[in-house]
């Protein structure tokens, strides 16, 4: 248990009549940068809210840093940082005031970090929060979540309204934090290129279940697109385990598979006397293939 920052076991969650999560299990190891992928409406936000105890779950068990999210201990809260997708915060306060306000809740607050981030992101600490743009407000929320140097950082679509420069800055900050100290980062996104850069583990949420969960590199090794050219007619006889998608004419086929191993290629080559080209897929392509 101590090895996981978040552990979800057989969690089910319904919103109204719709099942959003069904019997879902997920474990996020400590120290990892964990990316959660999924189509719009797949339930990423709900999963995160369940993990934080912001909503009640219908079945299953969750622990966050070894604590029950439905009833978090104050000490656990000191170690948590969360940035929601969008947030409404007191518009009449200035950036400086909202920082002081948030800081006052925590026993530890890194002023230096907060100031350098404000600098990096060109946020004026005297600006009123209500006048910030969507992106700036998101930056501010990120800064507020980093100030107390939490052990577990959870972001819901953190970069959705950030421009490319700010997005890069955000990733850099996250990487700096992970390499400086023990910290687990869990975030949902649909911008796969960001995930590829920073995440070491990913989970794919599809049809209220986790479709894949593990190391990003393993995912990339396992999901491949094969281009098969065979001397015989192969339009009927393709029996490959882990087939996701197949497109074929008489002698040629383009198939995507999961659970790919080099031996598999040799086996098919022998079986069909075919020539096979293995194509590496990047995360975006994998995402598209798996969501077919």
């Amino acid at each position, binding site marked *: 248990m101590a090895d996981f920052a978040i552990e979800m076991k057989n969690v089910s969650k319904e919103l*109204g009549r719709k099942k959003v999560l069904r019997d879902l299990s997920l474990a996020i190891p400590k120290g990892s940068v964990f990316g959660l992928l999924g189509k719009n409406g797949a339930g990423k936000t709900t999963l995160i*809210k369940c993990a*934080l*105890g*912001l*909503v*009640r779950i219908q079945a299953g068990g969750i622990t966050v840093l070894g604590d029950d999210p439905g009833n*978090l201990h*104050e*000490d656990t*809260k*000191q170690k*948590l940082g*969360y940035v*929601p997708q*969008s*947030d*409404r915060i*007191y*518009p*009449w*306060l200035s950036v400086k*005031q909202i920082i*002081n*306000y*948030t800081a*006052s*809740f*925590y*026993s530890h607050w890194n002023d230096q970090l907060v100031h350098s981030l404000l600098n990096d992101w060109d946020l004026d600490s005297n600006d009123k929060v*209500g006048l910030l743009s969507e992106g700036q407000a998101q930056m501010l929320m990120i800064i507020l979540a980093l100030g107390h140097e939490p052990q577990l950082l959870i972001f819901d679509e953190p970069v959705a309204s950030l421009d490319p420069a700010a997005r890069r800055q955000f990733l850099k900050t996250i990487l700096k934090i992970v390499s400086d100290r023990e910290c687990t980062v869990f975030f949902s996104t649909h911008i796969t290129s960001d995930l590829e850069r920073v995440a070491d583990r990913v989970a794919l949420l599809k049809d209220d279940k986790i479709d894949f969960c593990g190391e990003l590199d393993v995912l990339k090794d396992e999901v491949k697109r094969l281009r098969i050219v065979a001397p015989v007619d192969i339009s009927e006889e393709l029996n490959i385990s882990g087939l996701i998608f197949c497109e074929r004419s008489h002698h040629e086929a383009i198939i995507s598979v999961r659970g790919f191993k080099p031996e598999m290629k040799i086996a098919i080559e022998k079986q069909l006397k075919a020539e096979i080209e293995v194509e590496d897929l990047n995360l975006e392509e994998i995402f598209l293939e798996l969501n077919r």
Partner: protein
Amino acid sequence: MIKNIKQIILLYLRNPAFSLILGIYLSGAVSSRYFLYKRDFFMSEEAFTFMFLSVICLAYIMGVQIKRQLANYRASLLPHYRKRHLGVSSLWYVLFILFAFLWEKSLPPSIIFTRAGLTGIYLACLCVAMLITWVGYLSLVRVFLVLYFAVLILAIQSQSIFHMIDNTPWLNGFFLFLSLVMLLLFGIRMMKLKEGNFEYSYLLTWPPKDLIKSQFAVGPQKPGFLSVIFGDLPAAGEGKTKKYTEKRSMLSRAFHWDYIELAELKLFWIFLALLTPFYLWFVKMANELHLFYNNTYANFLLLSVTPVLIVICGNYRRIVFWGYELLKPVKKEPFILQHGFAMLMNLLLYWFLFILFFSILPGLVLENPFLNELKYWLYLFLTGSYAFVVFAWISYMSSLKSTRLMILNGLVLCLLSLLQFYEAANFPRFIILTNSTVCLLIGGIFIQATYRRWCRAEF
């Protein structure tokens, strides 16, 4: 911890609305005592009204603040968040009551306000305010708005309420007990509020920028909550209506834009009907209030201004979507005309409900001799035509760009309303009739001007 509590207290003080009304409260209290010191009892009482009314507003703002503070993720994730925020809110209110105690201390016996009365009323106000903000849901908002305005109007009769409460200890105790129980329940609920709870996302918001954001965050208005209580009520508007383009008459087109309002209106009828026996019992029992309900001339603002506010508040939520709706294949001029028409129909209905439940029905139950007089009915008609003016005038103000003009218009409107409230009933029948006619005329002119201005407006 002290730093933290200081920050939470500052959170209130930095809120412009809160600090402004706190200022009014304090200056009302100070000037009331000052006039008392100068033996000017009339002015003292007027200043006290400010102090009293501002507490109602403060209670309301605090309700919004509490909801705002607790209906978000921070409440669950920041250490000690809920306890301290609820603590600070209670602290504020205790301070208000303590201040009122101090204010009341060594008051000459000629003035009838007492501690018990003050406390009871203050707590009752807080409860109403909590309810409004707690269940800040579309239609229910308006239902509770009515209650709220009723309290506000009662405040004008504050003397008699104080008198009544002071003279009936059990009633005072009952109020106090009810308030404390409700506050306790509210506190417990707020300590555990989660996102799945139905009241979580329905927060009365101000100003509009925030409102628009929250509307988009919540998504389109969900009829789900209504249908839980009343079966397929909202569906009646949705399923059976033809498309906008198939509708011929102005009336049916106006209904098209208005179908959500209609579902709410039905709810409103039901709610008032359920409520009526209780308050008639209350009216019969409380001798002092007897006068108030039985004498229609005292209810002018309740009958004329409140329905307008309800209609305007409802539409205010929808107006932010006008620009978006105009992208649909509709023409701007008829669109605005139909909306205006729909609002007017609503106004008529609400006004009718108000005179029925707050004047005619109590009159019948309490056997009010006024019912046989023509003047009474003319006066009721005046409340309707004045409601029309207020509606037209506020709509006109909504199309003004200059803030100064708006404040000026608002001031004139307020003064006019007070004048009507105090004086209208003192005139003979003929003048009342003329008054109504003039009101209708002026209203018509304002409506025309508003229509033109909105047609030219940018969305």
